[in-house]
């Protein structure tokens, strides 16, 4: 099994929202953050980050604005909206429950015989 895991679409959205929860950022720094915190475990093609960003923008979870980057270049900054923050909260909770459940299943002791109906 490969060390890197293909990231699910919903997961990418969640990661983006999380990345932006620290404050507005442009696409490059979002990519950087994800790469850093997941320690490069998740196989994310950087190119697929942008359609996801635009999609979230369209759904109103984040909003985009052109601004100036540190080196004085025009860059598109994304910021979390109120709706985005709520979505992040809800999604993180769901994701944790899901992960916990899967983990519990994987670490269950012995195989039980399925009960007959």
């Amino acid at each position, binding site marked *: 099994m490969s060390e890197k895991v293909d990231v699910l679409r919903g997961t990418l959205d969640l990661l983006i929202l999380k990345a932006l929860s620290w404050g507005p950022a*442009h*696409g*490059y720094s979002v*990519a950087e953050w994800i790469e850093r915190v997941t320690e490069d475990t998740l196989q994310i*093609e*950087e*190119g*697929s980050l*942008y*359609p996801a960003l*635009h*999609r979230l923008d*369209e759904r109103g979870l984040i909003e985009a604005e052109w601004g100036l*980057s540190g080196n004085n*270049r*025009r*860059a*598109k900054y994304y910021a979390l909206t109120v709706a985005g923050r709520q979505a992040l909260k809800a999604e993180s909770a769901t994701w944790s429950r899901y992960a916990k459940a899967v983990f519990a299943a994987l670490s269950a002791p012995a195989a039980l015989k399925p009960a007959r109906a």
Partner: protein
Amino acid sequence: MGAPKEPLWRRYLRFFGPDVEADVDEELRFHLDMKERDYLARGLSPEEARAEAIRKFGDLDRHRRQLRRQDSRRLRRDRWSERVDGWGQDLRFALRTLWRQRGFSLAVIATLSLGIGATTAIFSAVDAALLRPLPFPHPAELVELRAIEVPFREEAGQEEHPSGVTIRDVGALGGLFSGVGAYAVGGLNLSGTGNPIRTRVGVVTTGLLPTLGVRPAFGRHFHPEEGTPGQAAVALISHGLWRRQFGGDSALPRSILLNGLTYQVVGVMPPEFTFPERVDLWIPLTVPMTPETFEPFRGAILKTVVARLAPSATLDAARDRMRLLWGKLPAEARDEYRALLADPVRPLQGSLVGNRRGPMLILLGATGLLLLIACVNATNLLLAHAATRERELAVRAVLGASRGRLVRQLLAQSLVLSVAGAMGGLALAAGTLRAVQGLLPKEMLDIASPHLDLRLLVFAIGLAGITGIGFGLWPALGATRTDAHGAMKSGGGHGATAARRGRLRRTLVTTELALALMLLAGAGLMLKSFVILLDTNPGFEPERVAALQVVLDGSRALSNANRVAAVNAIAERLRGVPGIEAAGAVNDLPMTDQVRMSIRVDAEGKPSGEGAEPKFARWLMASEGYFRALGIPLIRGRLMRETDDSLAPKIAVINQTMAKIIWPGEDPIGKRFKSGGRGEFRTVVGIVRDVRERMDQRPDPHTYFPIGEFTPQDVTIVARGALAGPDLLAALRLAVRETDPTQAVYNARTLTDAMSRSLAPRRSTTLLITAFGLLALLLALVGVYGVVSYTVTLRQRELGIRAALGASRNNLARLVLTEGATVALLGIAIGLMGAFGLSRVLRGLLYGVEPTDPTALFAAAAVLLIPAILATLIPARRAASADPVEVMRSE
């Protein structure tokens, strides 16, 4: 490696909205540049750094394409919803504003409803009669052939006449026409299926229905050989009759009795098909016709010959060909048809509409004028309304509302008004549709009855749209052109804009008045015609006279002698009824829509034949009692007597017009004439007064033959008596039933009823035009009142100053009255010129009145002027009471 700089001008382009492609490129370029810098910092060579950045990004092209697509789709959606939001906002705003000013809104909606309603109702009739094609396949190919005869022969083996061009000659042409047929409409008593009823019968050649392109719903069509004399009698019936009379039993053939003769029903026509003139039965018109052919008719048969042009043939080619056919005949054969030969082929639809075309187009024109007035009035109201909102608009313009947005809001408002107007108009049109049906000739009613259909809805909505944008845009542009600064400062209502708007409104009101006058003048002329008609002496005394028709069938129809005896018996019995003063019989009553027959009159000793103008007279059969019952006075000589029977020497009674035309300056009594160069000479024994066949037609020459000499099967019995109308009719019915209880009667009516019915189409046209004129008057008055009272508001300050300087109340009132009167007089003057210009159009509708009749025009002007002056009195009073202190304080 530095990023290519975005050209500066690009940024300006963003005024017109985001540039999706450039934005996507820029965002991605930024990412790659950052990444590249990262790798450079980690010590990669520039080439490696770039390559690594791109590799890490994935499929650059695919991502870029996807982003562009995603973003442009979003942009389009955003723009659209923004626009819809804007419209929704404008609409809600318009509705709120209009609701706040309910009075104003209602006035505009009512004005438009009237205009659109009247136009739509009349248009529905015009549409039905003139525009909608006949409900047959390729209706444009159908033509009426005039001056074409169906040959006739008395007995098998005998010679056929006339010798003119016959339907057979047309059928033999080939190529030019793909089908030809003839029809006539008559009536027969239907029995053998329950109660005997009178039915309208289409007598049609076997070629007619195929020519029209219709086939029976079930059963079969007439076979060609059934169109020759001596074949088994067959009939087709209408879908309606089949359901009513046969209970929808589809077993065919089955036999019915028509005037006591057995016919086999071989087919049922499709629903809706009742051509011509709402008939219920079709029987073959044989070629040649025989005496039996005349059974459904009252002595006279009016045939219409219909042909279908071959796809390649033109109307002109058909005309030339018809003239060529006639050219081969001797001149004397052509004489009788001279008038028809001028236009031997006409489109069928046009000939069915006939002489109703003119009145209908005039009515449509009148409603057009009314609609125009309504729109002008609505514009005027909106202008006045815009003036009151001037300040609000100015404030909003200053606060940054774009002019386009303001115009859009005003337009939304007028669109709301016009859509409401269209709805009101449609409701009005639906309500008046029944009245409008009376305008249609009865030949058209079932072929194409007027109804509100989708096309009409489109028509109304279209009208509303055009008027809405038309009358909305002008005031909207005018209102937003306002110099915001000036309007804010002055508080509105003053300055150059107001003056310009005042001029505009005066022009509008003048137009309205001029148009209204044209309508009123038309109404005046029509009313005067109608009054003259009512005063016209019809030549007989219709009061206390009743009539009904009988069709003699069975043994009583068998011979002329039997018929004469039957009619005499009825008249005899009637004369015995107390209260009945006179009774008689005739084949045709005046003031009815019946087919009348004319005969050619060749007077003894007068030039006839080639070169001589042929003379015709209406041919009637009457008894002495007929003249007494109708009160037609004998001028000279004697009336027919009972002894003037088929064996007696032939005599005739003529009317004054015939005497004048055939024997000018001579005494016609004792003179002799022949009909159509055939038969024996007939001696004139008496002259009676002229009788009008229709109120608006001058009397024709008439000749009356004794009904005792020849009695048709279908006879009208008349009686005069001191009884009330219904009692008189009851007495008539009773007398007929007592002589033969099985005798069917129909068309029972009093003559005053018949007269009023004959005037009905003209009455409805006159009423409609008068109603339009009055509506126009009302609208114009609203306009005058509006514009004058607006001026008073506008000049409040000036009036106040004048009052302060010592102007009397009268002076002030006169100032305003002069303004109103100027507008009114100018409008009336222009309207009179317009009425003169249109006078020729109206001529065809008038009777006994010149289209430039001064009394009617003067009356119209007075009817308009007096209320117009009255309408200015109210604002004038307000002006007179201008209080200088009040005015100064309000500044």
